[in-house]
């Protein structure tokens, strides 16, 4: 299945990154392992037509309203990156504590910065530091099962489909590469509604999926060759996930040291109507 027009990859308004998209992007496919989905080992550069589908016209400025429907690249200022490393250095010299000293202040400053830049994190946002071994195909880890989770929707897997009010549901908002090596974001460039429509067209006889997890499994099983986008994220850079439900993960396939990601997620808003299954 060829790449379809979905959400665009853009630099968020008011952020300044010198991005050579062609040099940052690779396309691949997924493979299933024990019911989980990971990138295959082979990657290729996108064709000019595929780049056009992914980027639109990158010279045109992106408005704030349109940005919600794009995967937007962000970057943390150097002083915040330095603050993070300073915090780690202090931690290394002090007796071990259950919680990183200065973490709350650090993430508060990150939130203030993003707010100033017009990319505010939701009010109930939670910041996690995710440390991954080098060479991992997924940074999502199931601690109980002790294995990588692989590609999933940025919204909780149990959420019922079709989506209700997405902003009130538990979800991953975005992430930042706090490490000193590039990591790669892996994603399918289509929102959940496109995936469902694709399935409805191809497997019309099957009943529609009832949860996001079911939608993800069915699509990735049915379309394993649909181009999986691999986007390089340099140190200090981050991404904001568009609305609509996105199949997304990140990997440390080319890193020599551990990957350090600041993941921003939202807990379920009080009174949200979705049910856990």
């Amino acid at each position: 299945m060829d790449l379809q027009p979905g959400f665009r990859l853009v630099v968020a308004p008011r952020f300044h990154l010198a991005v050579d998209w062609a040099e940052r992007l690779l396309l691949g496919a997924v493979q299933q392992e024990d019911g989980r989905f990971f990138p295959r080992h082979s990657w290729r550069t996108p064709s000019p037509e595929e780049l056009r589908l992914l980027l639109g016209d990158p010279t045109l400025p992106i408005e704030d309203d349109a940005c919600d429907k794009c995967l937007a690249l962000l970057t943390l200022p150097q002083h915040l990156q330095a603050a993070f490393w300073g915090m780690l250095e202090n931690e290394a010299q002090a007796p071990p504590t259950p919680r990183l000293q200065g973490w709350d202040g650090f993430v508060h400053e990150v939130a203030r910065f993003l707010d100033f830049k017009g990319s505010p994190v939701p009010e109930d946002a939670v910041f996690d530091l995710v440390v991954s071994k080098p060479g991992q195909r997924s940074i999502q880890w199931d601690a109980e099962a002790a294995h990588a989770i692989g590609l999933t929707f940025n919204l909780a897997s149990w959420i019922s489909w079709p989506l209700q009010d997405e902003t009130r549901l538990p979800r991953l908002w975005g992430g930042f590469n706090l490490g000193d090596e590039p990591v790669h974001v892996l994603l399918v460039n289509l929102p959940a509604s496109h995936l469902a429509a694709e399935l409805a067209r191809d497997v019309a006889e099957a009943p529609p999926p009832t949860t996001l997890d079911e939608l993800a499994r069915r699509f990735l099983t049915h379309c394993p060759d649909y181009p999986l986008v691999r986007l390089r994220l340099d140190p200090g850079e981050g991404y904001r996930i568009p609305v609509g439900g996105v199949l997304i993960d990140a990997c440390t396939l080319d890193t020599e040291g551990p990957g350090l990601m600041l993941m921003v997620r939202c807990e379920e808003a009080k009174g949200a109507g979705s049910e856990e299954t």
Partner: protein
Amino acid sequence: MNADATALELLVLQPTPFCNINCSYCYLPDRQSTKRMSRSTLAQALEWVFESGLVRDPFTLLWHAGEPLVVPVAFYEEATALLDSYNLAGVPITQSIQTNATLLDEAWCDFLQSRQVHLGVSVDGPAFLHDRCRKTRQGQGTLDRVVRGIRLLHERQVPFDVITVLTASSLDCPDELFDFYQANGISRVAFNVEEIEGPNRTSTLLGAGMAGRFHRFLERFLDLACSANPPLAVREFESSTSAIQFMRLGPGARVQENNPWAIVNIDCEGNFSTYSPELLGLESPRHGSFALGNVARDSLAAVIASPRFQTLEAEISRGVEMCQETCQYFRFCGGGAPGNKYFENGTFASTETLSCRLHKKVCIDVSLNWLEQHTTAAAAAAPA
């Protein structure tokens, strides 16, 4: 002697109108002209200044209004010797150069160090901001050369300040600017706003909601600057807090830029003016040339008595009075810059300008908020 005239505070000398770069917001009309101030004009200019009676207190001699470093170091060595020879009373004089830093070399560092010349470097921040406006005549960015100059200043331990011109794009980037200053060892910074002056007929800062954006920018930048170790000095904050804490300008008050002869501007041909330096070299249908005379032939007394100066002074004075009558910030500001008033409002007898809205009012408001918050916090933290 002109005992009635204000004492000179700032002498702006133009060694050449030429600039080796071509900034998009520049107000200098003749920046492609390679004319230079001759030794005899320089001597006449200094003689005129010291004989005018204006030199009564320490003042600053600023080499500006073109790129001063396109003129060889030898010119400034000679100028310094001449300055000493005319300054018989030994009035303390601070020499200052405002430069784009692209031409700095070892010889310049030697001169700046040996003569203790104050240096101001014009740089607008990271490349995506600086190179957008500060370009060569071929349209290339200049930041690489500026940063090379800044590195040399650090290597040679030559102190310097920085002036950054803020455009609308800069207002989204306080963190990026802060990072730039930190990365380049810049410890003192001043912000100018992109002004409507002379040939620069518009400003990106004219858009709607700009005062709010400027406020947010300054507020965030101030937080970053004050949290740095050591704190980054910001001229706008220092001057605003000083105005808030100490300055209470009353009726009849004037400040440097609208006070006749507090500033004297002399171009490379010896033509002189007063008030805003940007006025020199320009003219208006009503006032004619803003150059009021030439150091080779016109005494200060004759110029002060001339109808042209009297008309100009009356109009500027009226503008200051209008500010006093209508603006609650007058006691901190003293009536604004005549140059801005003329270029924006078409007359000196006018009040608010872009510079007033952003550079004065917002700076005062932000500084006042900061002082209130931190004074309250400090008081709360103090032991009982």
